[in-house]
């Protein structure tokens, strides 16, 4: 499909994770630094959902909708799991994945 996953499935699983990652890390408009700054804001509800979904996806990447993350973000990490692991480290450093 030409449209993006979150446009087709705004309430679909991991829609916030895929949308936010694509918005800041799309190769056409890449800006990791801005995403890092946004990740520090605890008052943004969307980023709270993003972090929850990122954590959930890392625990079980097979739950991600097939190919959607890769086709939207077009990362070069090789796999969803590798990309998500890097993203977690970039945004949240050494914060344990299992923290609540």
């Amino acid at each position: 499909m030409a449209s993006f996953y979150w446009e087709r499935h705004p309430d679909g699983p991991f829609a916030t994770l895929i949308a936010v990652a694509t918005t800041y890390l799309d190769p056409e408009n890449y800006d990791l630094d801005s995403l890092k700054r946004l990740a520090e804001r605890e008052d943004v509800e969307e980023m709270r959902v993003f972090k929850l979904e990122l954590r959930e996806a890392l625990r079980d990447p097979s739950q991600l909708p097939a190919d959607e993350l890769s086709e939207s973000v077009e990362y070069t990490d090789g796999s969803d799991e590798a990309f998500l692991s890097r993203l977690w480290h970039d945004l949240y450093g050494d914060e344990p994945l299992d923290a609540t």
Partner: protein
Amino acid sequence: MSSRSGLEKSELDVPGPNTIRELPRAQGSGDQAQPLLPEESRSRGEAYAELRQRVEGGWEPRRFEAPRAELGRFDPERAGLAQVSLDAAADYVAQNRDARPWLTMADAASPEARRIIAGADVGGGHGHIRHEGWVTEDANMRRVAHLEDPAQLDVVKRNLGIDGLRENDQHHRCRSTATRITDPDAFATAFARGVEHPKVREVLDMPFDPTIRPKVVTVPIADLLGIHGHRYCSGWQLEPADGSMNTARTNRDAWLVARAEGRKPHSLEPKARPVPTFEGGVIAFLFERNHAENRYGIATMFPRPAERQAAGDQSRIRS
């Protein structure tokens, strides 16, 4: 979109490289930039890529019937751009065409489209720089395969994959497709109609938050350019590796790093092929934050094919 009064002041906020008007061919694979015939102005690489695009992509150069009255009514301020008169736009293109060679595409545009393109150039967006007719088929093919940025006017830097618009010599990034709207009137029409489309309007009218960037929005090509609008789009896509686009992108990076370091790459040289069709496709609008004016603007826009179907493959590309 940070210089709304730039035309009056003849000032630009974006870099203005001092270079030639036609893209020189980068070193590396492929042929040298030699004209085919005395009357042939294209290089061999450009002729080759355009022929492949015609045969495999079904694309033909054609003029878009510009809705000149509609374009004339377009208010640039709706997109956070400078108010530009037809005469000021013509002067701007004439004065800046050497340093900003993508403006040469405005030569073939209607005066009303030229006004929009000039406004976008002053505003700082890059859609008209990377996704319009100034970018040749050859340049788009090399962008996908070797991450050579058409906006990089320094040949050596372009060959090294250095971005032409970002500061501090950052590496250029590119999706697995590089696409363009091939006619300047079609580009300006898509931009003007996109700005007024409810989905785009909703973003541009959002309350501004300096930390938040709006999500990407897509609008069907047919909504902006009519049912035959896809005919004014062309593009190249990375060839999958082992049936996977994900692997192809990873291999592309590894191959380019190895080449830059003078090592023998472990993977095959990345290749690109024409997008078979844009029928059913969309125009993607990406947004930027205009901190000076506390509003959002359009960072870029580009065509996106409906299905990432690789010609000759039995199934859809798996990532």
